[in-house]
């Protein structure tokens, strides 16, 4: 999984704790307070390869500076606290703060957990794989 994917799909409590630890030790300034907005989703029709707009998705974004380094957080839906935490973590990783190893370890642990969850779901879905047999005389 990509790092951004883990951050977006991982548990909020994990990122909240990390962001709180960083904010306790470093100067965090808001560049862009968490706000909802929309992203127009583009799709491409697989029949004629025509791009078109499928509809909009609600998203949330925030920007911060941690010790002068900018970071941004994004997520679908109205998730102001999550995107603020993700912005803090993004800035901390970009700035290579001393907490970087701790953050990367937390991301790796969350990735393993997410992969385990996904594998369980994939196994359940795979259990519905079917091959319909034609009946004789048909």
């Amino acid at each position: 999984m990509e790092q951004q994917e883990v951050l977006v799909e991982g548990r909020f409590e994990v990122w909240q704790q990390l962001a709180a630890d960083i904010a306790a030790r470093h100067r965090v300034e808001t560049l862009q307070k968490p706000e909802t907005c929309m992203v127009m989703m583009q799709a491409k029709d697989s029949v004629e390869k025509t791009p078109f707009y499928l509809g909009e998705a609600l998203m949330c974004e925030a920007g911060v500076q941690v010790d002068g380094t900018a970071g941004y957080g994004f997520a679908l839906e109205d998730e102001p606290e999550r995107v603020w935490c993700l912005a803090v973590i993004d800035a901390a990783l970009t700035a290579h703060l001393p907490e970087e190893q701790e953050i990367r370890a937390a991301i790796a642990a969350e990735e393993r957990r997410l992969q385990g969850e996904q594998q369980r779901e994939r196994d359940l879905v795979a259990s519905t794989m079917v091959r319909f047999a034609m009946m004789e005389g048909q």
Partner: protein
Amino acid sequence: MGYVAVSGGSEAIANAEELLTFYRLKGGASPIEVRQIREQMRLAVDKVMSEGALYAPTIAAIALKQAEGDNIEASFILRAYRATQPRRYYSLPADTGKMRVIRRISAAFQDVPGGQILGPTRDYTQRLVDFSLLEESPETVRAFFDRIGVQTSRSDQLPDSFPKIIDLLRREGLLVEPVDRKETLFDITRESISFPCQRSAKLQSLARGETGVMMALAYSSMRGFGDIHPYLGELRVGTVPLCINHPAKEQPVYIGRVLVTEAEIISEYYEDEQGKPKLTLGYGLCFGHNELKAIAMGVLDRTMQSRSPHKSPAEDEEFVLYHIDGIESSGFSAHWKLPHYVTFQSTLDRLRRTQQLREEATASECNREQRRDPGKTAPGL
């Protein structure tokens, strides 16, 4: 026809709105949690998002609660919420080839590369009422999760991605080739559509259409009002990654996954530009898990390509596209409930005047006949 505004009734209107809450809660049951709606009424939430044209599961669940389960009303609320939000980004084109599939079937081919995955479906159930749901409790839910998957054979692994079935037909030269339309991407939320309509506008309109009316129109074609006999080449349900470009980031940014349903419809063959007969296609894609809508969209996409000089309703793109939006059609249907006192009074005035003129004309005709033939009895006497 002109419209005349009415005023007054503010208190009654406010009370009427409050009465909705009274009727929603007067049964005494615990208020439904929005999370419960979002997770356990997921197909209703998906329909609201698809028809409201905004992917926002929690807001859609709130709208459903607010609308007491009225799907169209909830879509209307979601569409109104959408109008309060700024659009800051356009996503990169979502690639359904990278879909994390939870369901994928083909009704056209028995053996498909990657296999047929039934996924979560009621297609093969008997639709008997499940009375055990009356007794569902945290304990039964726990027992279910302990049980599910325990007996599952691990021999079948899902591939990371599934090849498109129509690509197999395309490689054999059996499908019409995509037309390079050189069209700009049309946005129906920014410009009004005109006819003939660009394909991107058609697909956007269909993607936000109301499931019921789309199904009815597609059904009319399936039944014979048109000449389309569709085959379901492939139906997929799953999530696709959504990425945006952000000015502060060099690489596209992943912001989450969106659940979609995609249908590829194979239909009658036409002769292509070289005179070679080839199968034609229709495409359906919508937010959420909504198979009937995706199939209906694919069928309507194909019916609107009809070359028939005598088009049935489902083949007439103006007819289809102007009638599938649930918010527009419900809004217009519902507006008849609003006061039309003045317009109706003017109708009554015209009717009374017309009746009066008719009576006067009849009386005058009788008088003329009486004068011509004094012995004749007047009609109706």
